């Protein structure tokens, strides 16, 4: 591997690495970065540092929790007060529009195929889990538990942009993992998967996570989640 000869160009490419890691570069810039990374070992090493930062920034933000119901109550009380003072004109939407919006809520902000594939996979898996639970329990009360389980060991994963539905299905199958919730974030890329029905020892979870992290063709980010 050779270093990029032109230092200004190398500097320019290096400045783009954080956005390349986050998958927010244009196709043209992403291709430029990919070519540079293939030719420049030092740049590739620095890219690994960027990926570390990205992983830990996501981890840090995911541990921040969520606002209490108080924030929503306060918001809608304020909206009600405003509406009481000066109501706005309302209009209804037809069924088609409502269905369209409902379906669009399952799709990601970007055109990333992986998120779409994962959204399809989660629906399929939820259906399968639901049918199994209904069959086993003999009651229709299980499905809601199946879609948001609390028992077991879990991880948060972001699938690689190039991952297909087959890749994701095979990946989950290989680790006997189940897609249980997602997308968790607004960008539509993070999904919660169940690694095991039972609570695994921390070192065992760490081992599984490390193995998953090595599957960079399918997974862009993965971390344990309580």
């Amino acid at each position: 591997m050779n270093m990029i000869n032109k230092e200004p160009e190398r500097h320019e490419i290096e400045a783009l690495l954080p956005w390349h890691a986050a998958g927010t570069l244009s196709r043209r810039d992403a291709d430029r970065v990919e070519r540079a990374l293939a030719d420049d070992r030092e740049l590739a090493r620095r890219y690994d540092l960027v990926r570390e930062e990205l992983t830990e920034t996501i981890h840090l933000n995911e541990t921040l929790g969520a606002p209490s119901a108080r924030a929503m109550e306060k918001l809608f009380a304020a909206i009600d007060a405003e509406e009481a003072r000066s109501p706005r004109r309302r209009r209804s939407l037809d069924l088609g529009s409502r269905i369209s919006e409902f379906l669009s809520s399952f799709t990601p902000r970007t055109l990333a195929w992986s998120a779409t594939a994962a959204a399809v996979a989660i629906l399929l898996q939820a259906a399968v889990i639901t049918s199994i639970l209904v069959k086993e329990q003999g009651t229709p009360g299980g499905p809601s538990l199946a879609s948001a389980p609390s028992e077991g060991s879990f991880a948060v994963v972001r699938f690689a942009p190039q991952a297909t539905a087959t890749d994701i299905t095979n990946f989950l199958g290989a680790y006997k993992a189940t897609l249980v919730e997602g997308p968790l974030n607004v960008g539509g890329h993070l999904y919660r998967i169940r690694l095991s029905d039972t609570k695994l020892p921390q070192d065992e979870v760490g081992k599984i996570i490390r193995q998953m992290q090595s599957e960079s063709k399918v997974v862009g980010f993965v971390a344990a989640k309580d």
Partner: protein
Amino acid sequence: MQSKSDEVLIGRIATGDRLAMQVLYARYHVRVFRFVLRLVRDESVAEDLISEVFLDVWRQAGRFEGRSTVSTWMLAIARFKALSALRRRPDEGLDQEVAGAIEDPADDPGIALEKKDKGALLRKCLTGLSAEHREVVDLVYYHEKSVEEVAEIVGIPENTVKTRMFYARKRLAEMLKAEGIERGWP
């Protein structure tokens, strides 16, 4: 595409559709909360601020022109509100380095043990960045904003966004070095 779906919601909110407001809130409140919380470092203040952010969305939906995505627009509103709140609290300077946020591990065996975990130490240093650096790092890595979108949210030129990100990462490397982690960069 979620951005298109967001625009549909904003269109409905502009006509006073409360349900659309609930959907938008459900979709974004956690993310906006975390963005604000990382800036103001106070959960109670952050909760108050997200109510204000979404109330502004309710009020201004009719003026949304779609020149940016809805999430970028909301993060820009959130940032403005967070900075206004920080100005009301002079003890939380905007560019103040929060070196104190990084505890000295020497006195605490628990921290010393944690230090072995590079990831934990990296997260600790991320927490210790200045507000200016924290926000650019979060916007790029967590909120998945492009150079153009960060420029719009923060209100700075695109080249400044790249420079600021570079210096944020450089500062992070320095903080890690001070904690005994040499990354060989910059």
